[in-house]
């Protein structure tokens, strides 16, 4: 029988956009999609054998889970591993994550945040960016009034002035930025966050030869598709307009800011080094409760397949 590859995603539009193209046609395996709301459920689904790979899980999720477990994972015991990184195509203009402040707060730079309210949702990349931003300005969480909010509530809270500043996803605050209700303090790259998301696999799936092969094929196709999509905003935008009821402008913006390339996690590559660097930093400033060795949650076996797809 045909093997089944179960792929976790975060937004339906991801699936709709790729299925509108031919990149996944004729796979020797069947793909089952699972939309999961957030990093927590995704990690659980991977760990609980509900999905095989996640497309789009934040790069900090696996190291975070390792450092939060009773003991740090080793390369052998890690139940999930990053098998590829997704790098923003245009991180200058469409840097996915940035730190914003509400206009009313009068905050213009990060160092102004001392004694002010500062919000993020705990555990995810926003948390990491939030801490790195403070660190960059020589502050730590004790210098601000921390407000932990849900992901959904963070941006509205800044816009409404309920908190002074917060890390946020650019696409969520684009309108508010344009109207001047909030102002940009820093992008993720500026504060030293690599800004990758990942393709993360269940270790059990990697050990299964049939599935592993399927994943390899999928990685090639994914890399090809992403390269194509980066130059075909209009098509992706159409998917956004359909799935999320966006206006053409909004959809185009979402497509551009959602454009990524798939890069391997091989140990000598720049992305890997950036990640190791960031992981060390995040361990120091307390995002990870224990120092983590990034290489324990990485499997670079698909380097060749990814590079094939990128050619």
């Amino acid at each position: 029988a045909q093997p089944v590859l179960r792929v976790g995603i975060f937004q339906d539009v991801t699936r709709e956009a790729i299925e509108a193209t031919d990149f996944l046609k004729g796979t020797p395996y069947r793909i089952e999609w699972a939309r999961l709301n957030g990093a927590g459920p995704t990690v659980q689904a991977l760990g609980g054998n509900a999905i095989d790979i996640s497309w789009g899980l934040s790069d900090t999720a696996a190291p975070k889970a390792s450092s939060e477990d009773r003991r740090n994972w080793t390369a052998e015991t890690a139940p999930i591993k990053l098998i590829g990184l997704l790098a923003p195509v245009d991180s200058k203009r469409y840097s996915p994550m940035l730190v914003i402040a509400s206009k009313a707060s009068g905050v213009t730079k990060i160092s102004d945040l001392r004694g002010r309210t500062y919000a993020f949702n705990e555990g995810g990349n926003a948390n990491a960016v939030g801490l790195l931003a403070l660190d960059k300005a020589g502050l730590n969480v004790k210098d601000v009034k921390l407000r932990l909010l849900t992901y959904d509530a963070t941006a509205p809270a800044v816009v409404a002035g309920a908190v002074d500043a917060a890390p946020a996803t650019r696409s969520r605050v684009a309108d508010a930025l344009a109207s001047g209700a909030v102002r940009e303090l820093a992008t993720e790259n500026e504060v030293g966050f690599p800004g990758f998301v990942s393709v993360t696999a269940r270790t059990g799936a990697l050990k299964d030869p049939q599935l592993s092969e399927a994943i390899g094929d999928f990685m090639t196709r994914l890399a090809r598709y992403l390269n194509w999509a980066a130059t075909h905003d209009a098509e992706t935008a159409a998917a956004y307009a359909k799935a999320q009821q966006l206006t053409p402008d909004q959809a185009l913006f979402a497509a551009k800011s959602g454009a990524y390339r798939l890069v391997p996690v091989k140990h000598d590559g720049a992305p890997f080094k950036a990640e190791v660097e960031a992981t060390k930093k995040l361990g120091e400033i307390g995002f990870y409760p224990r120092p983590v060795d990034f290489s324990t949650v990485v499997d670079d076996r698909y380097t060749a397949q990814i590079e094939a797809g990128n050619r």
Partner: protein
Amino acid sequence: MSTLPTPRRNGHANLRVFKTRAASSKRQVSTRELTRLIFPLALLLIWQFAATAGWIDSHVLEAPLDVAAALVDLARSGVLWDSLVASLQRAVAGFLIGGGIGLVLGLVAGLSRIGERTYDALLQMLRMIPFLALIPLFVIWFGVDEKPKILLIAIACVFPVYLNTFSGVRHVDAKLVEAAQVFGVSRAAIALQIVLPLAMPSILVGVRYAMGTALLALVAAEQVNATSGIGYLALNPRAALRTDIILGVVLVYSLLGLTIDALLRAAERIALPWRRTLNEERRR
């Protein structure tokens, strides 16, 4: 019990007379039912008026008409309809399973102390488990298909029905049950033909609540691998930016609430015919 008339002070009181029979005709009653909607509609009007007059910042609260517009958009694109169908299927399935289990467990525990001793404490423990916290476990245990969703809804529905059935059964007039015992009515017949109907007012409260719970549990259930559904719409990451869509979904839920209310009122009239006669009599 109908409205209490104002007590009269010392002296004399005229007798009340109802001149015409027509006053209590069917049509009259259903018009009266509609007066229930006056207040919600009035609130809606005030809200719209305040929004139009600019007293409410649209960032804080969108005007009803804008909300309606967002809903119309959703409806036109077919999303709303698909979501409703997908969600209602899940909700109904979960409600039937959970409500059925709650009813049976409540009936048995209410009727027999052995049943109560066996599982009442367990259910009192289980009912406190926040189903939101169960989502991770459910993903691990049951994967990401329909199963965990329906199960989650079913679990949420068990408890309101169970609690109300149990209490309703326990407070059925023991004298009536005694009479039935004396006349040799079987335990099953006592349970089904006497206790169940008499506990029905209480059970229907549980059902009413469970129907609501089923829809609420959707919001949690549809966080996992749902591509449509009103729960999904409610927490759609996209929707978080648009208060008009959030409020639109809220409005959809409210209307479902009204529908459930109407259903349950009808069910009450059908399930409690002996009360209906009395109330109508008394209302005159």
